[in-house]
């Protein structure tokens, strides 16, 4: 069997080593990565529920994710987690610490955790997150969680990759909530107020309920607002129930499939730009002089590469 064939079979059988390898291949743009992702099981990928967990730094995303793992395992599901942390813009390195809160699940063969660095991507996830999700689905995970970097208002990439996205907030993180109304709060499928036992939580829940009311769906239903105390596990089962109800609905209405088709288009564009980026950087570096305005030079370089921008 070829090396790729072995990895694909290993992934399908849920082997941790093969899953880890496969994700690295995509992440590192290995020459064999296209053959690998092409061989993934479309049916398993279609059936898998992909959940986005996003929110500002310190809202409790990792702690909540750890509790969600526990709840899904209690319900007998095999679960994957893609935990994204930012890469340092200075060194390119990253400290990936989300795992610390999930270590109790490390020896469970039906919990697949992968920490990923954003590697220069600004949308709150990393370029290979979508492929990592599909590799996990191929390995038999019926739920995959994507935990984004701590986000502000504009990191919305997760909304594309995930079928449903939960925005996690906590009291005491500042008055940014008003400002966020124009960003993730407009698109999240669920609003979670974590640390609901802290002072200020009631006020935040009221705020979120008013946001939710402005976002009624066609049937006049507001976006669900869930209160959780993740470090004690409170509200987590109810949150999972909400995920499942919404999942049934988007599957029945065809919204899940439509959303994935749209997201696919965006992911193709993202990959194309990511694959092109090193070539552009090389072309810029190869120039001996950079006289003139940056915009003019950029257009020249693209034209020389045969990618002339529109007038």
């Amino acid at each position, binding site marked *: 069997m070829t090396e790729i064939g072995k990895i694909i079979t290993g992934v399908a059988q849920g082997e941790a080593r093969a*899953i880890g390898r496969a994700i690295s291949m995509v992440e590192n743009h290995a020459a064999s990565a296209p053959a690998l992702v092409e061989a993934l099981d479309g049916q398993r990928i279609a059936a898998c529920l992909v959940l986005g967990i996003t929110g500002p730094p310190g809202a409790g995303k990792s702690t909540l994710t750890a509790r969600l793992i526990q709840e899904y395992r209690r319900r007998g599901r095999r679960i994957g987690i893609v935990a994204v942390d930012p890469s*340092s813009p200075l*060194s390119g390195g990253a*400290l*990936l*610490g989300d*795992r610390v809160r999930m270590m109790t699940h490390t020896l469970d063969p039906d919990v697949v955790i992968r920490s990923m660095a954003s590697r220069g991507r600004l949308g709150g996830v990393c370029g290979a997150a979508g492929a990592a999700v599909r590799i996990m689905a191929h390995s038999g995970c019926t739920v995959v969680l994507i935990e984004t970097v701590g986000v502000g208002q504009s990191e919305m990439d997760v909304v594309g990759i995930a079928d449903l996205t939960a925005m996690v907030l906590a009291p005491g993180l500042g008055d940014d909530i008003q400002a966020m109304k124009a960003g993730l709060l407009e698109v999240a499928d669920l609003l979670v107020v974590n640390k609901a036992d802290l002072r200020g939580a009631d006020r935040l829940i009221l705020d979120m309920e008013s946001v939710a009311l402005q976002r009624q769906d066609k049937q006049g239903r507001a976006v669900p607002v869930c209160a959780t105390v993740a470090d004690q596990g409170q509200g987590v089962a109810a949150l999972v129930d909400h995920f499942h109800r919404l999942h049934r609905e988007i599957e029945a209405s065809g919204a899940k499939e439509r959303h994935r088709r749209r997201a696919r288009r965006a992911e193709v564009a993202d990959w194309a730009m990511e694959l092109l980026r090193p070539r552009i950087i090389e072309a810029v570096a190869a120039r001996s002089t950079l006289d003139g305005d940056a915009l003019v030079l950029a257009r020249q370089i693209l034209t020389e590469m045969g990618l002339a921008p529109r007038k």
Partner: protein
Amino acid sequence: MRKMYRVLIGKPGLDGHDRGAKVIARALRDHGFEVIYTGIRRLPAEIAAAAVQEDVDVVGLSSLSGAHLRLFPAVVEELARLGAEDIAVIGGGVVPAEDIAALQEAGISRILTPGASLQEVIHAFETACEEREG
């Protein structure tokens, strides 16, 4: 584009002193490594399983409590059990000179002791990563 090196820093056993491990994790990050940190009080099996899931090039273990002779080789054994004997293991912390030979015998590729500079630490990880890449 050079391959991004991924390393895992773990603290096996009951030793809760993680200042050293954190300093090293941060230094490696600042040197361009992707560093997965496991936190304190981990089983050797947990560290090995995490290293396999994360597909790291090198595992760095920190111990200040004196249990290194038992815990470091245990991680090497667990990695082998998972078919990941190619992941190098580096040990660091309070390790008396007379223990170093035994640890190397047990498959710990490098031992860093008190007084090692951050530069030496980074170099050790870099070389281990390069060796694995071949």
